[in-house]
């Protein structure tokens, strides 16, 4: 009996590919590849079509933001924050000034608080829509990409009306905003909020029960709750794994605790759950925006604090004191007290925080970005291990990386 079995095995092995066993192939994806969402390079060791090992390479976009920040005044750093996670530029602007204001000891006005919530949730919508569109393209669905990018364009039009720029908004200043929203803007946002859930429902119908979509996403890149925490994942990546942690709820800022919204939490921690969590977050963002519009109070946007806020232009050109004040603020810059502060926010990618260390001069000693997609991406070797090469693309897309933020 034993002999027969041995012979059978030998024959079948011979009949397959005798020399192929045990020889792994090394292949390279990126850095110039549309499916890597920027200049990410993955070196994959493949056994047949199965990933044995993945070595990511990042840094192709590194431009030393943190170093540059040490040579700039606080307000001058804000344009850099647009350019790291460029899908969440308004959110980064707000996150930056929240940290800087804590460092200066400034309490912002009520109108400014609500406007900033609006800014953050709009950029969350942009970021999640881009995520949805590009992931659809990666997996092979073209239509939701067009729908989501069309809605994203509507949000960009709103942001352009407010700040003058679509992508690189630089919309905040320490102590306030670059400007109040223009006339008619609130109505524009209301119109968007009326239309947008319909588009979302359409995308939902295209994807959520779509057999191909489900087949390409379920069971991929699974992270257990313990693993997800241990690998430092945050945002939708962490919540899809079943960990209920949202900075807006757990370490609130901008009065988020007074808004009525819910935090979607997944159960399986796979690509499909990440999709569900992000879609639900879009709906919750709409809810937050509706409440914010309802409560948007009148009043000034900027704080009345001459340490950081420039005098009005007409005074700066007509009064000597105001002109000196203007000159000193622009040339020397506001000086925070000695200290350090780390203020995290819930960016669309996860926990983003800016860590400032001040030595009392107008430029920070250290300006550190805590990049959520950098930490999320560091778990990709773990997530793709044992999956097929084609699934690497889906898993990579589900992380929602922005290379500008990863490389900084």
């Amino acid at each position, binding site marked *: 009996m034993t002999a027969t079995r041995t012979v059978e095995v030998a024959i079948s092995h011979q009949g397959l590919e005798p020399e192929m066993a045990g020889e792994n192939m*090394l292949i*390279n994806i990126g850095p110039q590849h549309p499916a890597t969402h920027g200049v990410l390079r993955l*070196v994959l*060791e493949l056994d047949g079509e199965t990933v044995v090992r993945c*070595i990511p*390479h990042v*840094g192709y976009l*590194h431009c*030393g933001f943190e*170093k*540059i920040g040490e040579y700039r005044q606080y307000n001058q750093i804000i344009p850099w924050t647009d350019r790291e996670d460029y899908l969440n530029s308004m959110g980064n602007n707000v996150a930056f000034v929240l940290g800087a204001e804590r*460092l200066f*000891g400034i309490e912002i006005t009520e109108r400014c608080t609500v406007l900033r919530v609006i800014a953050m949730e709009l950029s969350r919508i942009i970021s999640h829509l881009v995520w949805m569109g590009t992931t659809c393209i990666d997996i092979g669905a073209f239509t939701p990409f067009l729908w989501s990018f069309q809605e994203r364009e509507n949000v960009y039009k709103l942001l352009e009306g407010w700040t003058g720029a679509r992508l690189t908004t630089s919309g905040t200043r320490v102590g306030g905003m670059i400007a109040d929203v223009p006339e008619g803007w609130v109505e524009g946002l209301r119109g968007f909020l009326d239309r947008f859930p319909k588009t979302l429902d359409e995308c939902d119908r295209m994807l959520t029960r779509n057999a191909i979509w*489900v087949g390409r996403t*379920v*069971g991929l890149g*699974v992270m257990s709750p313990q693993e997800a925490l*241990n*690998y*430092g*994942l945050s945002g939708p990546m962490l919540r*899809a794994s079943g*960990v*209920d942690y949202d900075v807006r*709820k*757990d*370490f*609130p800022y901008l009065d988020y*605790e*007074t808004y009525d919204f*819910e*935090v*979607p*939490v*997944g*159960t*399986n921690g*796979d690509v*499909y759950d990440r999709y*569900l969590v992000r879609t*639900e977050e879009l709906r919750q963002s709409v809810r937050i925006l509706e409440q914010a519009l309802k409560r948007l109070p009148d009043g000034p946007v900027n704080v009345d604090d001459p340490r950081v806020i420039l005098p009005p232009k007409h005074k700066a050109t007509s009064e000597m004191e105001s002109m000196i004040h203007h000159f000193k603020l622009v040339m020397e810059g506001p000086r925070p007290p000695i*200290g*350090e*502060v*780390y203020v*995290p926010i819930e960016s669309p990618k996860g*926990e983003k*925080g800016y*860590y400032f*260390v001040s030595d009392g001069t107008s430029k920070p*000693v*250290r300006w*550190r970005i*805590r990049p959520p997609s950098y*930490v999320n991406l*560091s*778990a990709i070797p*773990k997530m793709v291990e*044992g*999956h097929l090469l084609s699934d690497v693309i889906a898993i990579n897309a589900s992380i929602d990386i922005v290379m500008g933020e990863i490389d900084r």
Partner: protein
Amino acid sequence: MSSPVRKDPAAPAFAIVNAGQPGDRPATPKKVPHKGGAANPSVEALRAKFGSVIGRHEVMWGDTTVFVERTKVAEVCAWLQSDPTQSYEYLSDVTAVEYRDHVRPIEVVWHIRSIKFRRFLRIKCEIPKDGKTPLEVPSVWPVWKGADWLERECYDMFGIKFAGHPDLRRILLWEDFKEGFPLRKDFPMRGRFSRSEQLKNALAADPEARYSMEEISIADAYGDLPLDMRKRLAGGEKVGE
């Protein structure tokens, strides 16, 4: 593949939690004092457990910073993560600070977070710039796997070595970057090399040298490599400094 597959993909896959419990959640901090305020209770617990390993602590803008002896950081972190009364299960950030001061020590900073108790703690250790103390701290990678890239970045930017890290290579800069560590204060903003030197180095680099040392050892393709990489490999080079 051992990944669990959902049985019924049409069933609602996620739960909505925290609905309608606004009172249960913390509120936005207002009028945070610059110095003083209640310290994180973990500091007292650390003192009771580790004694003199724990240095001074301070509360600034609402966050507690605790100084820990340089060589004991990993031990302290492992306890903070595993002890059920502390439960710091999340590592937010690892970074370092160098002051514009020739005497003040370099600080390595860990931002850790307990999601269970909603606590935030900043752990610091000081490395004096006396030229004798090695720029080295223990790695917290065995405690939190998320420390992997954060420590690599910190090494890349400051040159701080993390003892016990499995793969401490440069990450944002390329492997044979020779100019030093950019976030150190003695590193000039425009880089150490002149533009012509940088150009010369760029032109001298072999664009065919695409794989890192580690990947080459996997691929076992030594014979196919360009000559300069073979030379570097033969020299046993692992990290470009």
